[in-house]
């Protein structure tokens, strides 16, 4: 663990990313304390520029506090990012494990299925799913999970393919362990590090995808989100630039932080690769 942390902190960008990410989590946790009351409530006159009337980041077309919207929106973004990643991991890991461990026609079938999902334009498909199953937080998470599992399945399959013929797996087979037990207790723990790195990047892209959906008006109508804030600022960008600039910065910082942390994790978990990359850069 100490070793892990030492390698992680050698990547300065990753440490910066981690700090930003912790700050975003703090804002999300304290949103009700810093900005009590609903972010949908009118707080002041409409279109107040940042800094006036006690509005740190200005107010929107209905006099709502943009800063309060961003703070409350951070909860939804982080939550959707995390939950949809967990769901995508569940689909991707089980399909990838199945294909990689069993091989043969199962592998073929699963890979064709995965390729199909990689070929179709995923964003258009996500829009379609949310529109058809009506926009709720559940359908948004479902749609994001459905379009983001294929890379996981590929990575897990590749890991399982190379691990299943190793000696420790053969030993477990000789001992008479069941297939399920071998997959879960012997192979999966050894395939974990690429999955961990991938999932930090998936949270980042899930946040981007969620913001794009709610920008198009496909967010849950009862929840304040960053994408919704930018979407509502779009038509009035000529008179109220702050309405779209600040929520966008919030998305940018969060996603950047997650990407940086992902690189740090990759360095910490694959020290050999990190040294190679350090040599090339």
């Amino acid at each position: 663990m100490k070793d892990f942390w030492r390698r992680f902190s050698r990547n300065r960008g990753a440490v910066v990313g981690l700090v930003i990410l912790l700050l975003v989590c703090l804002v999300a946790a304290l949103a009700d304390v810093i900005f009590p009351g609903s972010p949908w409530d009118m707080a002041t006159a409409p279109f107040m520029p940042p800094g006036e009337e006690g509005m740190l980041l200005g107010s929107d077309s209905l006099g709502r506090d943009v800063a309060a919207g961003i703070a409350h929106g951070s909860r939804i973004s982080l939550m959707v990012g995390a939950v949809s990643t967990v769901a995508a991991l569940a689909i991707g890991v089980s399909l990838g494990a199945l294909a990689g461990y069993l091989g043969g026609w199962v592998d073929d079938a699963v890979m064709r299925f995965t390729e199909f999902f990689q070929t179709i334009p995923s964003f258009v498909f996500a829009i379609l799913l949310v529109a058809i199953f009506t926009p709720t937080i559940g359908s948004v998470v479902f749609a994001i999970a459905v379009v983001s599992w294929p890379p996981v399945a590929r990575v897990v399959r590749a890991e399982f393919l190379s691990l299943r013929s190793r000696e420790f797996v053969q030993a477990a087979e000789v001992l008479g362990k069941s297939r399920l037990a071998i997959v879960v207790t012997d192979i999966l723990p050894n395939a974990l590090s690429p999955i961990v790195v991938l999932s930090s990047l998936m949270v980042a892209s899930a946040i981007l995808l969620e913001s794009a959906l709610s920008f198009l008006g496909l967010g849950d109508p009862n929840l304040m989100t960053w994408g919704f804030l930018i979407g509502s600022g779009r038509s009035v960008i000529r008179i109220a630039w702050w309405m779209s600039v600040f929520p966008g910065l919030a998305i940018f910082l969060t996603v950047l932080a997650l990407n940086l942390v992902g690189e740090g994790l990759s360095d910490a978990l694959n020290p050999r690769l990190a040294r190679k990359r350090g040599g090339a850069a």
Partner: protein
Amino acid sequence: MELSRLPGFLLRRGVKAALVILAIVVCNFFLIHAAPGDPASVIAGQSGAADERFLAQLRQQFGLDQPLYVQLWIYLKGVLTLDLGFSHRQQLPVWTLIAQRLPATLLLTGAAFVLAVTAGVTLGTLAARRVGSWADSIITVIALTFYATPLFWVGLMLVLFFSVWLEWLPSFGMNSVGVELYGIAAMLDVAQHLLLPALTLGLFYLAVYARLTRATMLEVADQDFVKTARAKGVPEGQVVRRHVLRNALLPVITFAGIQAGQLVGGSILVETVFAWPGIGRLAFDALLARDYAVLLGVFFCTSVMVVGFNLMTDLLYAVVDPRVEVEG
């Protein structure tokens, strides 16, 4: 790959593409059935009459009283003849609506793609040749930034900067309103409107291609055939162009094929921001009106575009791969 094997390779890819499209059509069919509201009652609601006999008549007319597999067969036959359904909101066939908007989308995605590939490969080559220099770091920082920025937000910021503050470029539409232009003036007008949307859509991929080109060029530069070329006394510029870049381009092409779907998806966001009259904007309007027939049509069309694009990259791969030339 040998040239003589090329037709077989393309045939296999063609069959695969056709199967993918078939799967998309079937997928579409089941999504129609998952959409809220029985199509007959939706139509009846829109035409203002809703008694039971009229509904039954509508169901019969559209084959909705048939078993599911018969309906699927009817739907498949329809799609084969470009019958993608009827938009009861706009009172036009879906294919007509899409065909009107397709050229604008192709222009936008094409321009963005060309921009991303040319600028990305150039920047990536520069970065790889001067590893560790300030130019290299700047390119890495730009790439990281665009990885993390929502596409639609980049568009809005460009509008804010270039249209609202500097007033250099138009912020929406494809043509100037209220003036009639012909010939070169009309083309320049469209180009002016195209610049910001194409830049928005292209910037992210530019960053991606720059990073990818840099990484693969560094990898190829270490290989034996490059050392051999240098040892033979081939000039440095020629080594980079003929030996390194040409081999480094292969993964870039593969990646371009994989990314095609995202480029098309991104165009929905960009067209929404810039009111660009393409199929993305059509999808956004259909979304607001919950016009599922149009949405499904757009999904089908964009999927076909992506499959077509993948076929093209396969062909290109065969052309660029130096081994084809050696053996042919």
